[in-house]
């Protein structure tokens, strides 16, 4: 297929450094208002930089055009459907940016005294209470910076818990469906990874689990629903196998969006949970962060939580998330005024995993989300996410699609599901990658591809609750259309995309001869 070069394709990439010209500037420094002293007196010459770093020299109008131009070379969630499995690309409410930018939040120094940052600490405390209720676990730390950071915290908590009892274990179990972050985390925390198989049903192979569980196992890391989008029906038995040998059960919260208000990890027997606030609680993904990865734990793990921990005193009852100002105790003043603290006095704590108190700006957005939805709305979000996923799956089970892209495990799914492109590859000569690239020409973000690893030519599809039925229908129609097109001429998809700012890129060449900065 030949298509004329689009204007954006004609506009070749130039970096901001290539737009720089000596003498241009955007920044004007405030005037020196103290008596100037010779620099040599302030900083010995041998410590001073002689050649200024070659940063761009460019005026504001061109900075704006440069980055605006770059932005147009990105696809984004506010523009179109983004069913990237396991990433929960749900709508990012605009209110959240407004409240996060309030000066009392944005310009609050992290070392401001607790008595002068009570609003921030109250917000964090109330978020802790809400997250704990959602997970069904009593203690929450907001400290970790992202999901993988929460995982590291969780495995280090497990280590601290066992070692405190004089129990030195060596192994952590992860299912073969796990996110790559799980095994990578296990290695970083100094444990050996032991893989557990998957049964014909798409759940943990319980016999394999039993065979591999012994007193050297420190922990089982599990995602439930798992990365196949399936809820493990044997969760009760799995939990008891793990607990029988004294190991902890870790919940990877990447898929929490399926079960809010419906089923809670704590009630399933999990000891440690991490949340991805950038997934379930709609912190914008930012092109790859920021996120936040708070953790919730059971009583036996609590002493080891990272520090500092946000606590409260003076309340007759724990704060209820989402109360309004008029019914909050401090509005009336009086003897039962609640005071919030940063508690460092935690002798068994594993310590810090980062600076300060965590990604507070993310907490503001996620708490705004919880307040907006409320307990009822969170449950509705999960129900709708599961409804949307099952509906899209039903549409993709129709004739014209299902014979090429059958569902990997034919059950009701939760918030996401996995198709296999094996038949498509064999019968149409189209790999999953080709289908993904052809979707780009239709203005759609492809699903996650080639994950989970145990499904050949996998497509992991997560529509989320914020999409309309029309959008889901349109996606199913496009997939069917691409498959019809491929039946006539598979070459079209194999050479796709055609309309994107650049076409298929030479990734092997990039890795072979890495060029990772602009030559200056």
């Amino acid at each position, binding site marked *: 297929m030949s298509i004329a070069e689009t204007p954006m394709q004609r506009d070749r990439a130039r970096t901001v*450094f290539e737009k720089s010209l000596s003498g241009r500037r955007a920044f004007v420094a405030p005037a020196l208002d103290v008596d100037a002293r010779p620099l040599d007196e302030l900083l010995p010459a041998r410590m001073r930089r002689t050649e200024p770093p070659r940063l761009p020299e460019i005026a504001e109008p061109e900075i704006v055009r440069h980055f605006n131009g770059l932005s147009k070379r990105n696809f984004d969630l506010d523009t179109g459907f983004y069913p990237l499995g396991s990433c929960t690309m749900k709508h990012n409410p605009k209110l959240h940016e407004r409240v996060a930018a309030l000066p009392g939040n944005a310009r609050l120094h992290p070392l401001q005294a607790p008595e002068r940052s009570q609003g921030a600490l109250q917000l964090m405390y109330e978020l802790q209470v809400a997250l704990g209720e959602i997970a069904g676990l009593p203690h929450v730390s907001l400290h970790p910076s992202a999901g993988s950071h929460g995982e590291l915290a969780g495995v280090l908590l497990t280590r601290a818990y066992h070692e405190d009892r004089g129990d030195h274990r060596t192994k952590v179990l992860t299912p073969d469906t796990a996110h790559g972050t799980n095994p990578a985390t296990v290695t970083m925390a100094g444990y050996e990874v032991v893989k557990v198989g998957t049964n014909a049903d798409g759940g943990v192979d319980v016999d394999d689990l039993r065979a591999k569980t012994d007193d050297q196992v420190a922990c089982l890391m599990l995602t439930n629903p798992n990365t196949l989008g399936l809820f493990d029906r044997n969760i009760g038995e799995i939990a008891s196998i793990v607990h029988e040998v004294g190991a902890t059960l870790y919940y990877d919260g990447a898929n929490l969006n399926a079960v809010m208000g419906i089923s809670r990890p704590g009630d399933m027997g999990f000891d440690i949970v991490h949340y991805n606030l950038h997934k379930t609680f709609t912190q914008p993904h930012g092109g790859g962060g920021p996120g936040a990865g708070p953790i919730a734990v059971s009583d036996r793990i609590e002493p080891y939580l990272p520090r500092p921990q946000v606590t409260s005193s003076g309340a007759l009852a724990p704060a209820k998330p989402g109360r309004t100002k008029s019914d909050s105790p401090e509005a009336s003043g009086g003897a039962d005024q609640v005071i919030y603290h940063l508690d460092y006095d935690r002798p068994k704590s594993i310590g810090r995993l980062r600076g300060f108190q965590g990604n507070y700006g993310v907490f503001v957005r996620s708490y705004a989300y919880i307040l907006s939805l409320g307990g009822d709305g969170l449950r509705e979000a999960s129900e709708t996410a599961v409804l949307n996923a099952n509906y899209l799956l039903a549409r993709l089970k129709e004739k014209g699609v299902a014979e090429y892209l059958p569902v990997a495990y034919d059950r009701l799914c939760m918030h996401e599901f996995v198709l296999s492109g094996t038949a498509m590859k064999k019968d149409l000569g189209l790999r999953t990658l080709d289908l993904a690239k052809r979707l780009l020409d239709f203005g759609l973000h492809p699903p996650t591809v080639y994950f989970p690893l145990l499904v050949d030519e996998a497509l992991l599809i997560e529509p989320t609750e914020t999409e309309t039925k029309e959008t889901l229908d349109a996606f199913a129609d496009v997939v069917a259309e691409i498959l019809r097109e491929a039946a006539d001429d598979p070459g079209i998809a194999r050479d796709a995309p055609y309309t994107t700012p650049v076409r298929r890129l030479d990734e092997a060449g990039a890795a072979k001869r890495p060029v990772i900065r602009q030559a200056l």
Partner: protein
Amino acid sequence: MSRYTSVTDDDREQMLAAIGVSSVEALFADIPAAVRLDRPLDIAPGKPEQEVYGYLRDLAARNVSTEDEVSFLGAGMYDHYVPSIVDSITSRSEFLTPYTPYQPEISQGGLQVMFEYQTAISELTGLPVSNASVYEGPSAVAAAGYMARLQNKRSRFLVSRGLHPHARETLETTARGFGAKVEEIPLLDGVTDPDALQEAISDDVAAVFLAQPNFLGAVEDLEALAPVAKTTGALLVVAADPLTLGVLRAPGEFDVDICVGEGQTLGNRLDFGGPSFGFFAAQEAYLRKMPGRISGETTDVDGRRGFVLTLQTREQHIRREKATSNICTAQALNALAGVIYLSWLGRRGIVDIGELMLQRTAYARSALAGIEGVELVHEQPVVREFAVALDAPVSKVIERCTVAGVNPGYALGTDYPEWENGLLVALTEQRTRADIDRLVSVLGAAVAAERTGVAA
């Protein structure tokens, strides 16, 4: 129907019919009754947007921000001016709402931003390779420790007492996991004691960690320390404040192996401590052991210049338990703010702002040292921050100052009991001479009052 979902009753009926079940409830049949929540979540019902805004605005109003007082608080995060173009560009949905650029053909904007960011960080640090960001400063130090350990398999870390206390603690927390020991090198006259370092160094040291400038604001003599640190093949890691690198020699000039740091000072707001970003730059030899995303230049099938995530065989989603790090989501949007800020500041601006900080800090330092009952903790060169010791209880002095609308700095004794009444004072381009003069008068009065026992 909540305001962020669109499924109507009609939709639901049609969708359930297509699925072949009778109710939404039936979709959850796989969840055993024993693990179902049999009551509503104990979280208040949802509220309209204007009420959520009002509630959160009232909470924010209970915080005293740098908008409300003249603040000299620093100690790792600094109140610099964030230019309007940063907010304007980072709030564009094309940057705010996509995820990691797994599909490069529709993510060239984000990938090119990473490439430009990597270039800017390389240029600032004087090191040839940079990744596309890590979480933040202290965890970047821990990531450097893990990489050093992967590189030379050794098990001791030597850490300057001048490294940020949060970074030292973070390194210790993570090192306990992978089985390395952290030992501290003391300070002498405000900087890392070279003799103590010499004494501690041996061939089982995996890495030596220094800060530039250090926590007390002092500029370390990297020229003298680097050869000592590197005598036995340990990696030298320097945690730097990037906004001082317009006036300070680049760490790369001293044979440093890894330079990391907190990127907040580059166009990111304070946000009570996060999100910001951490940077991670290194010598070429470590390219394939680096943590995190890296953007690389390449071409498309028609020969157009383009960018992709590269060297992904280091990463968790490919290499799993053999990955060089578990990091996945990092801080792309904050790193974007960083590269916009550096473009705005420009080649001249980063020197101008550095020299302005040098001059104002020198002015403030000598003015404070002139106060009765205030002494310098050290006389080393400083760029933007310095430490003084008060002859009065520091917490009470701070309290008196804040009542007068001035936050004089950070109580050093929190982390350094040896300076029980120490105060760490930070400057930015936002603190004018008038602000400094006010600090001098307010702090002077507070110290005097405490020394003579006047009631607050």
